[in-house]
C-alpha cells in the first residue's frame, strides 16, 4: 500500500483525499478560526430558501410566514424575526428512565415555553442525557413551533385586545383545558402551569377550566398550547368576508410588501380589533 506521506506527491496538494493522516485525532488544521464558538453561532448560514429570504431581510414579520403556512425549519428564522422580545422559561425537568440489561438508563426531559407576550408562543419538549443539552434542544424546538395567538374582547371593543376571542378548548392525553373570555382586570385565572403559558402568549384576562389528570405537566402544557393554537382556527363573524389570496414570498415578495390594501385579511382584522 502506498505510503500516504508527503513524499509521495511532492508538493502537489492533497485535494479531497481519503484519510489524511490519523483519523479523528483532533487535527487542528487551520487553527485560530475555531477559537470562539460564539463566532459560529452568530454566523448563521441558511439552508432553506425561506431562511435565505429572512436573512436577506425580504421577510420582516412572522405573519407573512403564517399567512402562507410555510414550514419553518430553522430556528434562527424565528430568532431573526422576533429578536430580543422572545423570552423562554423551563417549565420542568423530568428524569425518565428506561430498563436496559445493565440497569436503568436515565435521561432528562425538558419542557420549555417561549413567547414574546404579544401574540406568539411556542412549546418545546426534548429528552437528552444531560440537562443542559435537553434544555438547549427544547428551546430550539420551541422556537420552531411558535404559533400566533388570536386575542379579542370580552365586551366593548375599546383599547387593545386582551382576552381570547371566544371559548376554546384543547385536549392532550386526558387533560382538557378550556379558555373562556374574561372582562378586563380579571387577570389570568388559571393554575400555575397554564398561567405561565398564557402570560407568554400575551393574554391578559381569561377564565380557565380544566379536567383530567392535570398532574401530568406534559399533557397539561400541551393541552393549553393546543387551545391557543385553535384561537386562529375558529371562524367568527368578522371573518365571514371572503379572503383575497396573495402571492407567497417565494413567488413575489415585493408584491406582498408593497400593497397596503385589504388583500391580507388577517392583518386587517387585527387592525380593526386593535
Amino acid at each position, binding site marked *: 500500500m502506498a505510503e500516504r506521506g508527503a513524499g509521495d*506527491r*511532492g*508538493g*502537489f496538494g*492533497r*485535494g*479531497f*483525499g*481519503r*484519510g*489524511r493522516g490519523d*483519523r*479523528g485525532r*483532533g*487535527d487542528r*488544521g487551520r487553527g485560530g478560526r*475555531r477559537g470562539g*464558538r460564539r463566532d459560529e453561532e452568530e*454566523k*448563521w*448560514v*441558511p*439552508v432553506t*430558501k425561506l431562511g*435565505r*429570504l429572512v*436573512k436577506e431581510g*425580504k421577510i420582516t414579520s412572522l405573519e407573512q410566514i403564517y399567512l*402562507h*403556512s*410555510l*414550514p419553518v*425549519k*430553522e430556528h434562527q428564522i424565528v430568532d431573526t424575526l422576533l429578536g430580543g422580545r422572545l423570552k423562554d422559561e423551563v417549565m420542568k425537568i423530568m*428524569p*425518565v*428512565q*428506561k430498563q*436496559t440489561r445493565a440497569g436503568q438508563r436515565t435521561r432528562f*426531559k425538558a419542557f420549555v415555553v417561549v413567547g414574546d407576550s404579544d401574540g406568539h408562543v411556542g412549546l*418545546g*419538549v426534548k*429528552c*437528552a*442525557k*444531560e440537562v443542559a*443539552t435537553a434544555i438547549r434542544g427544547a428551546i430550539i424546538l420551541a422556537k*420552531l*413551533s411558535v404559533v400566533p395567538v388570536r386575542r379579542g374582547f370580552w365586551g366593548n371593543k375599546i383599547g387593545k385586545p386582551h382576552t381570547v376571542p371566544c371559548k376554546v378548548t384543547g385536549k*392532550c*392525553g386526558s387533560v382538557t383545558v378550556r379558555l373562556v373570555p374574561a372582562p378586563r382586570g380579571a387577570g389570568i385565572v388559571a393554575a400555575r402551569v397554564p398561567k405561565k403559558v398564557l402570560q407568554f402568549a400575551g393574554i391578559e384576562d381569561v377564565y380557565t377550566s380544566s379536567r383530567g389528570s392535570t398532574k*401530568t405537566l*406534559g399533557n397539561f402544557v400541551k393541552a393549553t*398550547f393546543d387551545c391557543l393554537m385553535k384561537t386562529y382556527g375558529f371562524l367568527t363573524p368578522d371573518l365571514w368576508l371572503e379572503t383575497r389570496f396573495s402571492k*407567497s*414570498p*417565494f*413567488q*413575489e*415578495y415585493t408584491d406582498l410588501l408593497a400593497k397596503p390594501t385589504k388583500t391580507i385579511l388577517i392583518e386587517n382584522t387585527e387592525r380593526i380589533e386593535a
Partner: protein
Amino acid sequence: MDSDTNDVLPLQELSLDEAITEVELEESYEEDEEDELEEYVTLGTIEKPKHPKFLLRHLFPSKTGGTPAWLDPVELPTGKFSRCDFCEEPLQFLLQIYAPIPEKESTFHRMLYVFICPSMSCLLQDQHEQWKRREEDPRRSIKVFRCQLPRLNAFYSSEPPRKDGNDKPLSVGAALCSWCGTWKGEKVCSGCKQARYCCEKHQAMHWKSGHKNRCHHIIHNLESISSSLPGEKLSRDKVACSSLWPEYEIAIEDECAYDAEASEDASYEASSLVTQHVTDDTYQFLLDKFEADDNKRSWASFQERISKCPSQVLRYSRDLMANPLWPLSIGRPTMTNIPKCKYCNGSLCYEFQIMPQILYYLGVKNDSDSLDWGTIVIYTCLASCEASARYKEEFIWVQLYPTTPIS
C-alpha cells in the same frame, strides 16, 4: 409542532414485552452511534481566494463559481454534454474539486466538475428523470464530469507548482467561449475573427452587450484581446457574461476537528418518537398532526450534524461504507436507482455531496424560478476507470425540498 408525542412516566414498572422491545431499540440505537463515529468526512468551506491567479488550472484548485479550470484543456466536453437536456441552454459551472486517488498511477491528478442549468423548472423536470434507469437514457439538467491524468502527462510538469506566481502549464489549451468562458469556443465571430463562442445564443448575447461596438475596432486597429494566437487566455480576465456566480475557493477541513467542540450527546429526536407504548386516540390524533415523522427525524439529525460547522458547502467521503447526510427521508435513492458505470460497467460509490448553504454564498436569488435544493449527491465509478472520453460522465442525484402546499 415538533414536540414529543408521548410521555414516559418516571420509574414506571415496564411490562415484560415492553421491556424487550425497548431493549431491542436501545441496541440498534447504540449501533447508530458507533457508525457515526467511524465515518470520516472531509468538509469543504468557502474562502475568498488570495488572488484569482491561484485558481488557474495548473495549480489544481478546488473552486466554485466563475469559470472552470479545466484539467485537460484540449478535449473539453462538447455538444450534448455541455447543454441542459430540457432547455438546450449551455450549463453553468457550479463547482469543481480536486480529488486524487493516491493508490493508482492513472489518478494522480483527478478533478470532478459539476455543471447545472440555472433554471429551477429544468431541475424539477430533472427530478423525474433521475429515477429512470440508464437504458432509458434519462435527460438531465445537472451533470458531473470526472477527469484524471497520471503524473507524467502532456499538460503539466511532473514537479509540483512552486506557487510563486511564475507557474505555467506546459501547453496552451483550447480557446473558450468569450461570453461564458466555460465551454469550448468552436464558432468564431465572422467579423473580427477573434471572439469565439460555444453556441449561437452566447454569440447573440455578447453582440448585444457590447461586442457590436468593439468588433469593428478589433478588425481595424487590431487592438485585440491579448493573444494573437487562437488559444486559451491564461490571465484571469473577466468574461463578458455577468450572470456567472461569484468565484470562491473551496477550503478543505476535517469534520472531526469540529467534534471536540460539539456536544457529546448524540440522542436523536428519533428515540423519543419511536418508543411507542401509548396507543389511544389522542396519540393518533397528535401523530396525524405531525405528518412525515421520518422527514422530521432526518431533518433533526441533519441539523445536528451540520451545526458543527454551519458554513460547510461540501461533504466528501469516498468510502464504501460511507453514507451521505440526507436532510429528508423522502426522495432517497435505493441500490437499484444507482446505475452502473457508463464506461466500465462497474459499480458506483458515493463520493461527495453539495449542501444547500452554497446557494447562500453564491448569492442565488430567492424567486420562484431560482435554484433551491436539499442536497446534491455525486456517485462515481469505484474503480475510477480510464475510458476514451477524457471527461467521463458520472451519476448525480438531487434531493429537493418538497414544494410548499400553497404557492
